[in-house]
């Protein structure tokens, strides 16, 4: 079985999608093996609970195989699969009524500059941990706006909230992350103080 995936590792996205469209079980499994780790990485950004993230991954791949006929080869297969994963994650978030969107920060502060990139940690696990520490509402907006690249209008439509709420959630998320990183990554705070001191 492992040999099969070694052989199919070189299959192009088009061949893989064509095989899946023909209902070839080997190609379906190969597609899952190729993209599952990255898509699981997407899911854990939205859902800190691993079991819930795997549920979303499972539902998303079921949708992928149901809708694989809609993939016409335009754009990368990975991008197409990723969009379905995000869409499934958003559906799950919208169904989850317990998500609260806190409005504690005024809207005019939403576009304040962030910390210097050099002072931010490079450890992906630490950053993921910081992201997962966000409240659900902050995390959803930050994921969609900052990482997925949607606009506030799109985020608002996806989550069923107003554009203002989306902006405030994003601002809150940034402030939360800065504080969290300062607490959990002491170098960040020290370097920032040095930077401020030198600027003065």
């Amino acid at each position, binding site marked *: 079985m492992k040999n099969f995936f070694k052989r199919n590792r070189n299959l192009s996205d088009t061949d893989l999608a064509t095989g899946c469209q023909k209902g070839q079980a080997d190609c379906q499994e190969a597609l899952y093996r190729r993209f599952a780790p990255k898509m*699981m990485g997407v899911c854990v950004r939205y859902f800190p609970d691993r079991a819930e993230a795997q549920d979303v991954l*499972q539902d998303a*791949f*079921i949708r992928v195989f*149901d809708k694989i006929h809609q993939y016409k080869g335009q754009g990368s297969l990975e991008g197409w699969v990723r969009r379905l994963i995000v869409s499934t994650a958003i559906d799950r978030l919208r169904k989850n009524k317990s998500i609260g969107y806190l409005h504690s920060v005024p809207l005019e502060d939403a576009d304040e500059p962030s910390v210097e*990139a050099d002072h931010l940690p490079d450890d*992906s696990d630490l950053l993921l941990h910081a992201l997962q520490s966000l409240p659900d509402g902050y995390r959803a907006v930050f994921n969609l706006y*900052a990482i997925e*690249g949607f606009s506030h209008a799109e985020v608002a439509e996806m989550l069923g909230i107003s554009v203002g709420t989306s902006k405030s959630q994003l601002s809150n998320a*940034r402030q939360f992350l800065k504080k969290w990183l300062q607490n959990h990554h002491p170098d960040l705070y020290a370097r920032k103080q040095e930077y401020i001191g030198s600027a003065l």
Partner: protein
Amino acid sequence: MPENKNTLDQHFKKRLTDLEVKPDSAVWQNIRAKSPAVTEKKGGVIRPFIQRYGAVAASVVLGIGMVTWMLNPNQFAIKPPIAVTTEITNDDAPIHQPERTASAHTREVHPAPTQALTAITATTINPKSASATVSPQTMPVKPQPKPQKTVELPPIGTKTVALASAEQEDSFIGALLPRITITIDSDAEPETVHSPAPVVEERPTARRYESPVAFFQAKVRDQLGIKKQVDTENQREVIEWNNPFFKVRHTRKIQQEKP
């Protein structure tokens, strides 16, 4: 859409976009179970079973076979079909033995089933004055350069010529075949005297196979009780398979090898 220039956002995007987390193996099982679009692999139960365990089973069988062979190669030897000696004499003529003849003292002759039904005569004789003659009506299995073979009998006491092997005696045809013992007195006295010299039995040498495939083919034939003989007269190959359920007899023309 304006580009997001926030460094915090960019840093998170850069580090987390291609983040990989390995899901549990149960996820794929659930997808396959729940999704109607995901097809089951072809081959049902038997093919995956063979794929999974076939190589292991073949390795075990091959290993056992090789170990057994290494421990006792003669066990795997197929006794060569030695032609029934048409004439045994004690003359001073040079020895003309087939290449695979085990011994002049004691020889086990394995006639084909068709040969087993031939009339065989045996006589107790004095080797100094006479000869023992065994005259089968059919030709021997191996093509013989001469119709008659002459084997010099050394002057020792008792010689035993068994015309049927133990295996053939166990078989139906073998049961019909009497075990013929020729006692030859090497002394000048006319009466038969048994010499105290022990009867030396030698095993036939292990047959060398052309290839491992030929070896396994021979072993499979042995295990299944398939007998393969060559009818040199008619230039045909006879394959017989007798078992409790059915009997198969297949003859085919021998393919002449091109020089």
